[in-house]
């Protein structure tokens, strides 16, 4: 499968994503420079973490105007698979590809640690290899990761079953103590209504090799691969 990994000048998880998708998972992974206007036949586009354009203003606020993002939007509208991780999630929200907003953490501090996630919807292209309610150990690292949506949007998200992951404790309980950043309803990741665009604050690429302490993040990439194989079979 061809994974195009966007590279904004301030991306800093681009190499991590390339490493996991290429050498670790054996896929054809390559970079897409932000000034390009061609996705080069990518089957899945990855927006990695980082600080796209420095993000002194608001994370992801400038990145949505880049030439490559025009192509990503068209690609998503055609049903192409797009996954935004951390800063990538922020950019997808700013670009209007996902609903809601990401605010500063409620502690007003950057927070880096391993958290637990509960899979809330395992029928997306990104979670179809997960068990319902499966708990994943995946690191977070962000200063602006508090997910917010107004009540109407939130109701819509619920109705469409768009919540992919919620922050939970090791037993899978969702409560305030297991919420690292103040996200509304402990939301850690959502998909769009159509289900082909995922944004998540935690970093699955940091939890894809045993030597780094967790391999729980792999299931997300493996779900994408599985989904693509199914799609080929049904065509």
């Amino acid at each position: 499968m061809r994974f195009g990994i966007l590279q904004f000048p301030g991306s800093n998880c681009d190499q991590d994503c390339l490493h996991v998708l290429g050498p670790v998972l054996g896929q054809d992974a390559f970079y897409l420079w932000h000034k390009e206007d061609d996705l080069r036949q990518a089957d899945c586009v990855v927006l990695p973490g980082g600080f796209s354009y420095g993000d002194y203003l608001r994370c992801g606020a400038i990145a949505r105007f880049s030439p490559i993002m025009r192509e990503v939007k068209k690609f998503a509208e055609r049903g192409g698979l797009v996954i935004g991780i951390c800063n990538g999630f922020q950019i997808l929200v700013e670009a209007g590809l996902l609903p809601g907003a990401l605010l500063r953490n409620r502690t007003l501090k950057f927070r880096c640690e391993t958290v637990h996630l509960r899979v809330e919807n395992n029928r997306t292209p990104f979670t179809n290899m997960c068990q319902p309610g499966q708990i994943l150990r995946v690191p977070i690292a962000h200063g602006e990761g508090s997910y917010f949506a107004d009540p109407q949007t939130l109701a819509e998200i619920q109705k469409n079953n768009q919540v992919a992951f919620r922050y939970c404790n090791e037993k899978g309980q969702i409560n305030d103590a297991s919420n690292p950043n103040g996200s509304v309803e402990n939301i850690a990741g959502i998909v769009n209504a159509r289900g082909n665009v995922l944004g998540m604050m935690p970093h699955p690429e940091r939890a894809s090799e045993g030597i780094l302490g967790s391999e729980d993040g792999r299931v997300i990439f493996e779900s994408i691969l599985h989904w693509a194989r199914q799609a080929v079979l049904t065509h």
Partner: protein
Amino acid sequence: MRKEPEITPQLIEKHGITPEEYERIRSILKREPNFTELGIFSVMWSEHCSYKNSRAELKKFPTTGPGILVKAGDENAGVVDIGDGWAIAFKIESHNHPSAVEPFQGAATGVGGIIRDIFTMGARPVLCMDSLRFGPIDKRDGEKDLSSHVRRNRRLLAGVVAGIAHYGNCIGLPTVGGEICFDESYNGNPLVNVVCLGVLRHDQIRKGRATGVGNPVYYVGAATGRDGLAGAAFASRELTESSHEDRPAVQVGDPFMEKLLLEACLELFAHPEAVVGVQDMGAAGLTCSTCETASRGKSGIEIELDKVPQRETGMTPYETMLSESQERMLIIARKGQEKEVERIFEKWDLHASHIGYVTDDGMMRVKQSGRTVAEIPARPLADEAPVYVREASEPPALPQVDTPCTIFPESADCGQVILKLMADPTIASKNWAYRQYDHQVRNGSCVLPGSDAAVVRLLLDELCGTGTPQVKPGQPVREKYVAITTDCNAIHCRVNPRQGAKMAVAEASRNIVCSGGRPLAASDNLNFGNPNKPESFWHLRECVEGMAEACRFFNTPVTGGNVSLYNESPDGSVDPTPVVCMVGLIEEARLITTQWFKKEGDLVFLLGGMGSGLGGSRYLLERTGKKMGPLPPFDFEAEKRVQEAVAGAIRRGVVCSAHDCSDGGLAVALAECCISNGRLLGASIQLPAVTPRLDDILFNEAPSRVVVSVSPEGRGTLEEACRAAGAPVCEIGRVGGDSLEFLADRRVVAALPVDKLRAAWHDSIASLVEK
């Protein structure tokens, strides 16, 4: 144009230049300097740039060895071989003074500066680390209100940590560990020492040289402003009540700009035909980078200030040359390759300004609007600063504690003391700080902050920069693992600087070994008081000689580092703080070892003996509020035997955990083994016959000791490894249960529930700072 001030004795003195130095300047120039030239000499001959007060001492360090590819002092950072054509570049550097005045930007730009030093060498930076020291952040017993010192120290801590987080997180380098210590002596003068390590192939090493007459000199990065004006000179004098007026000498950092510079430079360096030399503009900015590259290249350099990008109007040559605006690089390109250089920087939306060229007349010539405003022989300016051997005199000895201790009675409840020590901010968990640092970016952090040393995996594909990846799908990437630590117990160095410095090197080496590594090389950050005070200079000399001897013994050459003198506040000088940063190589992933207990039923061993003597210990400070000697004895050969035993046992595959005894002695080391990972595990510890006193056994800080746990089947192998190395070993207990219990003569002398220990240790700093 403004008229330049006249050179008067007052003006010379204000620049920190002595009458003798001024005479030397006149003889170099064969005329009087103008104002700009005076400024240039003042920053280049400041302690920060020239090491004029410490150079004679630094020569005592061992700097060569078979693995050293670039040695200390030759370039921006040393480079060490790690095998198979790979190398690492690493260095520690201080940003103490700026952080005292403006903690956030002071610390942030310190991180920026050290990262530039590393990628200037052609290496891709892969990790950062920090060694920080502040005045106390907790109330003294019996104190009702927070003193103004404590309030200020908390602000400094919060600001420094936020500044490090801001810069490191944005540029995308993991801050993988370090130390944070608190002591009265740092009131008003915190120490902020930052480390960066990068990876490169041998053939990628870049040099800071200007060679080839006519080769173009480029300026890349942020525009020059008046920020950081003469920061190097500022860092080379004492902090006073009015130091806050020096705030313009503190720079403002832009990590995004540095990220662009980093990536663009690494991409440029992949075209060796285009670049001759490269140098970052750190301390003394444009001045230092031009004269140093010319001096190293045995050439000259000429620049035109009108072509230097400026973000403020009306800057004088003096201001432009002395500015320490951040995120700027000087590139010496090869003639004919201008288009290629400019293309790569344009890709990263950076403008490369062609500001001058290399000459062959040995002069650093600065022009403005075609008129020469400074003309100085580069070599004497860069490399021939005066060298001073200062007067040294030993201060009166500190009070001594006897063994067995008779000056105070034994604590009635050693359990309570352990809890108190665990909550001591110097010993307590630093999670409040490192959770603010992205410590996992770059997918290399194998051992996260909180163990003896950080362990980071290096991947070959990291070397590919940002261009086309050289890795094929599914093809495994070659890996190597490095362990890195910073260590210094300043109380030990205050009590006995020579032995304290030896013990700092030994502890760093022991930490590397406990993590499964083989020590390779060290970088040092010497933080001392005013060298003109004979007692301060004596501290410096004792510590340097102690470190030099230890580095020679452990075969870990010093690859560079930094000297920060004048660490004084109105209350006096800081304790001598020679911070050692040591790097080791871990040959295989299976050897990576952490400090925490792993499994119920595992056996606990102490290597190196029980030790004795409370001099220099945290416990003594806690009990008496005093720093007292003597330190427990230290013996190089005994240290080596213990390290060989640990390394041997790890290689034999039986070690489940290894943790060295340091601050707080055996009791604290064992408590940390129980609680420093997410999963809490108790232990039952059988102490040998309690002589002379229980507190002496629990809290002495005798060096060369390691707590190891092995499974019951591993006992024989561990004992065999210890026998082979000749290290004393003693089985002291078993992992398991919900509390850490100490037994003596079959009687429980202290029992601490692990959750209680964990709470005291884990939340201590947050509870003080977040109030």
